[in-house]
């Protein structure tokens, strides 16, 4: 919302400076977005008088002028044809910046004669394009500031333009008068009395208006007057100046009047060329659906049922509250004009505007809510203005429907401001504020003015009082602690688990990423997603069309981007939600890590090697451990098909309780996602990790034995597809009391063992608890280990 200072002063009697006004506006909640003060750059120009003007001895077109200025007589060389004795001019003395030529004036010599300044043209001061000569002022005293003269004699030229942001609850501030009212309530001046129209209709309005019964909800009232015999044409200069200053193009007087009232008092109007209204009748009705109209923007619109339309005998003329039609619009030739002022329902207007994708000034205002009670007044003010400038004769007012009743009142509880805001404002001041804003106080009931549709309860009264009093003055007051003493921890076990996973992965050398929750359909489909349930209706691009089914596609895309930048090896991870459906709650937390390429750059120690499954297995186990997962797990196969079928493991507590998956990603997936080099990954489900059963921090007693432990190595020849964990579990079970640990330390495949065979070597650690182990005890356990393993694996002790 833009307006000029002089426009504001038409409604507000104030001597406040622009700075004072803008500060107050922002503080009141009408946030100033910009101030264009065109006078500021002219502040140093002063008025002078040319006392004499002689021809320059060495140049025919130049004159040597003696100019009387605030600093006495100055010699100025001037090339303007109108530079002559006796005229009052605008002088830029040395040191003054001249915006139109982007130069700071200095003392100079022109053709050998010194010049102490410059006399300016309008273009040089960016006042207009006029540059035929220097300015000749009809009045003005030597030494006065030129801006002051302009403010006095041609204020539009230096009228500061203020632009403010209007929050959706303040339609009243979409009119200059509403802004003035707020400022007056704050004490920045006094609100001038409102104009009261006194219009008598000279003849009955020949155009009849009606609203269908079923349409009264969306257009409760419709007023109009016909003015016959107007002379349309350009608007008077002051009106053109104002519209231009706020960025509106003057079109013709009749159209400009509607724009003027829209901005002046938030009263959108529409002017019909009455001669084009077929059948002298206007009817407000609901669209049936399928009707069309070419709007004032020369685009054709097709209506769907229930939109508010205004039609004459020939068809649709106007979209109620949104836009007029081209056919019946006013032109320069219009002589009989029908002026419409109506009230259109905000909700209906918003839906219609959104459906038709029309962002008109009228829609913007009607959907926020204009002042319904002002409807007939606004109409009469506009008609008065039209007659005053364009002549003609005004008809009586026609009316359909009735002004909707917005009367309501809320109790002003003066203590509520103290309790809700924490500011101590005397009741008298509260009442005064509300009164200044147009509320009518009747006892402790505050009656809401018709222009404030946003005020719907006691809390709104508090807000009005507080913002006018200024929230800047609010002094902070400590919020007492919930409990005295040391605060309790606040994070849930799952939140701590997330943090532990994140910190552990980072400690393992992974860089945390945060990738978008939506991803392209193809990538989602590679990971079991991409169906309609997780599809966005209005994605910002096809790259972000579906909610991600997993974190890995986003991480793989990140890896591909990094590889494209020349970084081939990386470790990335993310902790975040993935989506298995489109309903609230159909999301689950995941932790995924991705290793791509080599363990590091090639190095002098030869440590660099391609990443492998055991890297991600170790990392997955470490992160799971940090999240409190039990150490004893099953490793199963058969995970989803984006994993390498032979090189992945599911870390499970039973076949249905999957805590995580690690492994190599399927080459086809890598190919589709443009990843070079091996890629290993893990995905963990933090919510699947069981919560610890016991409460409390107690670790239990440490049971250690002073008796010496004994280690024995065994090697078994087994079929190549026998898994090490089967062997280890069998060995561990041989004597649960004595066997403390079983470790695999060697794997040897093929060779002398023959095709399809391998050797696995284990170390079994025996920890006696009661007595020292004797050879016979050790032999007995060793035999049990051999028996258990051969039974479980079908293998044999390697000879």
């Amino acid at each position, binding site marked *: 919302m833009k307006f000029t200072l002089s426009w504001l002063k038409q409604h507000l009697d104030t001597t406040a400076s622009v700075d004072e006004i803008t500060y107050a506006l922002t*503080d*009141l*909640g009408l*946030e100033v977005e910009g101030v264009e003060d065109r006078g500021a750059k002219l502040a140093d120009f002063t008025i002078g008088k040319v006392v004499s003007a002689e021809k320059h001895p060495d140049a025919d077109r130049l004159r040597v002028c003696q100019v009387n200025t605030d600093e006495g007589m100055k010699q100025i060389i001037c090339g303007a044809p109108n530079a002559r004795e006796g005229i009052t001019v605008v002088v830029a003395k040395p040191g003054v910046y001249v915006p139109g030529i982007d130069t700071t004036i200095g003392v100079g010599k022109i053709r050998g004669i010194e010049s102490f300044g410059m006399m300016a043209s309008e273009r040089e001061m960016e006042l207009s394009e006029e540059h035929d000569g220097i300015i000749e002022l009809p009045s003005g005293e030597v030494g006065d500031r030129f801006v002051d003269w302009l403010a006095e004699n041609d204020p539009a030229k230096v009228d500061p333009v203020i632009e403010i942001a209007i*929050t*959706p609850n303040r339609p009243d501030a979409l009119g200059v008068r509403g802004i003035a009212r707020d400022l007056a309530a704050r004490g920045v001046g006094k609100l001038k009395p409102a104009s009261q129209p006194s219009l008598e209709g000279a003849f009955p309005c020949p155009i009849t208006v009606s609203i269908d019964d079923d349409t009264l909800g969306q257009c409760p009232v419709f007023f109009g007057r016909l003015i016959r015999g107007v002379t349309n044409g350009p608007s008077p200069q002051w009106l053109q100046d104002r519209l231009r200053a706020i960025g509106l193009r003057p079109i013709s007087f009749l159209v400009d009047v509607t724009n003027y009232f829209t901005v002046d008092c938030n009263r959108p109007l529409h002017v019909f060329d009455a001669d084009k209204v077929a059948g002298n009748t206007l009817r407000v009705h609901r669209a049936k659906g399928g009707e069309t109209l070419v709007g004032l923007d020369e685009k054709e619109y097709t209506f769907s049922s229930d939109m508010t339309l205004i039609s004459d005998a020939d068809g649709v003329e106007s979209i109620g509250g949104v836009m007029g039609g081209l056919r019946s619009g006013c032109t320069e030739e219009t002589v009989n004009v029908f002026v419409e002022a109506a009230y259109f329902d905000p*909700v209906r207007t918003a839906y219609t505007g959104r459906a038709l994708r029309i962002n008109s000034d009228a829609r913007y205002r009607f*959907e926020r809510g204009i002042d319904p009670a002002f409807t007939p007044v606004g109409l009469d003010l506009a008609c008065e203005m039209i007659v005053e400038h364009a002549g003609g004769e005004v008809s009586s007012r026609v009316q359909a429907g009735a002004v909707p009743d917005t009367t309501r009142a809320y109790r002003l509880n003066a203590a509520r401001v103290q*309790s809700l*805001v*924490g*500011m101590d404002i005397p009741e008298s001041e509260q009442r005064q504020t509300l009164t200044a804003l147009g509320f009518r106080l009747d006892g402790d009931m505050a009656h809401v003015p018709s222009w404030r549709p946003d005020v719907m*309860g006691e*809390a*709104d009264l*508090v*807000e009005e009082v*507080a*913002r006018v009093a*200024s*929230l*800047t003055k*609010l002094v*902070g*007051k*400590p919020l007492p602690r*919930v*409990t005295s003493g040391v*605060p309790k*921890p*606040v*994070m849930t076990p799952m*939140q701590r688990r997330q*943090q532990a996973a*994140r910190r*552990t992965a980072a*400690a393992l050398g*992974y*860089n*945390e990423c*945060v990738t*978008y*929750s*939506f991803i392209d359909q193809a990538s989602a489909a590679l990971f079991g997603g991409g169906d309609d*349930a997780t599809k*966005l*209706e209005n*994605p*910002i691009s096809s790259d972000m069309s579906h909610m991600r089914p997993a974190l890995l596609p986003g*991480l793989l895309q990140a890896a591909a981007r*990094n590889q494209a930048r020349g*970084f081939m090896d*990386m470790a*990335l*991870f993310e902790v975040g939600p993935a989506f298995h459906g489109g309903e*609230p709650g159909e*999301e689950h937390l995941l932790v995924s890590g991705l290793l791509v390429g080599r*363990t590091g750059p090639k190095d*002098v*120690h030869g440590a660099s090697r391609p990443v492998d499954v055991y890297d991600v297995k170790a990392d997955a186990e470490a992160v799971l451990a940090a999240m409190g997962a039990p150490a004893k797990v099953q490793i199963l196969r058969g995970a989803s098909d984006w994993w390498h079928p032979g090189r992945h493991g599911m870390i499970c507590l039973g076949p249905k309780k999957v805590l995580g998956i690690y492994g190599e990603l399927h080459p086809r997936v890598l190919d589709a996602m443009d990843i070079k080099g091996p890629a290993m990954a893990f995905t963990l489900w933090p919510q699947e990790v069981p919560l610890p059963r016991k409460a409390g921090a107690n670790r239990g007693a440490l049971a250690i034995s002073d008796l010496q432990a004994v280690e024995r190595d065994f090697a078994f020849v087994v079929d190549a597809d026998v898994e090490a964990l089967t062997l280890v579990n069998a060995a561990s079970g041989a004597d649960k009391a004595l066997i403390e640990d079983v470790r695999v330390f060697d794997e040897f495949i093929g060779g002398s063992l023959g095709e399809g065979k391998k050797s696995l070597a284990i170390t079994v650690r025996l920890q006696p608890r009661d007595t020292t182990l004797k050879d016979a005890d050790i032999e007995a356990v060793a035999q049990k280990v051999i028996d258990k393993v051969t039974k479980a694996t079908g293998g044999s002790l390697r000879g």
Partner: protein
Amino acid sequence: MDDLKAKYLSQIAEASDEAVLEDIRLAAVGKKGEVSLKMRELGRMTAEERQVAGPALNALKAEINSALAAKKAGLADAALDARLRSEWLDVTLPTRPDRHGTIHPISQVTEEVTAIFADMGFSVAEGPRIDTDWYNFDALNIPGHHPARAEMDTFYMHRAEGDDRPPHVLRTHTSPVQIRSMEATGAPMRIICPGGVYRADYDQTHTPMFHQVEGLAIGKDISMANLKWVLEEFVKSYFEVDGVDLRFRASHFPFTEPSAEVDIRCSWEGGTLKVGEGDDWLEILGSGMVHPKVLLAGGIDPEQWQGFAFGMGIDRIAMLKYGIPDLRAFFDSDLRWLRHYGFAALDVPTLHGGLSR
């Protein structure tokens, strides 16, 4: 005997290695060595002679043995020194490569914010990213026609043919968690809700996903003055400055009344933000007293309870504190960016240890 002593001591002194030294030992004090042979002769001596020769020979033997031992140690030391001299390594060679993981600024700042508000008694609440339009809008006093609804650039979920429910939305703010938390725990309550939110906007300063933290405190007499204090304390603690000016500007949000936008006093020098000094004001968050309709929607009686709410951008305050210039880069996962702006695994922000290094 003095000759003997002189001979062997000089031989020992000149011995060049342990083998030579062993030969000398055998020749001198070995079983058939010269000194040993002399000792055998003691038996043939008279008692008087033996009285003199015995101790002298023993002394000689001891002296030679001691010289041998000393020489042996000396040779071993010299040999070790020589070996060590040959074992020179170029210790300026680089180490085996090691990966350095990092924590994303969004995670780090979320933990910072959590640490501060936890101290003021706020717990952390969470909610779904896909939510119904009731939780995201209606319950927050944003009815269907409200202009704010259109201004939010909402992402909608696809609706299957024949499913006539209003489409679900990707939450446009963390505020729906307010309602869900009110429903879950009722008043009194103090929560913050950090998390990702979504708006269909992408340009220099907007990404279709970003992060917010919502704060909500409901009690019997919690006022806007308490809100101001909480935010002042938060800003001081978060930006790690001793004092800060906050400016509350009246504004409007459908879910609060009265509403205020909050600016902090700051200065920009050479592109660096300094909080708490200077003449500029920087808008950092929106806030207000929870609208009675919102309390009602969450099942809390507005006649009994009141409180404040605020919301700010986690990414934004991360950018301000750590001087990160571009929002879009947060979600690009450029390794160079992650390493530069990321945080070490052990840099866990705490109030006692400090939020940042």
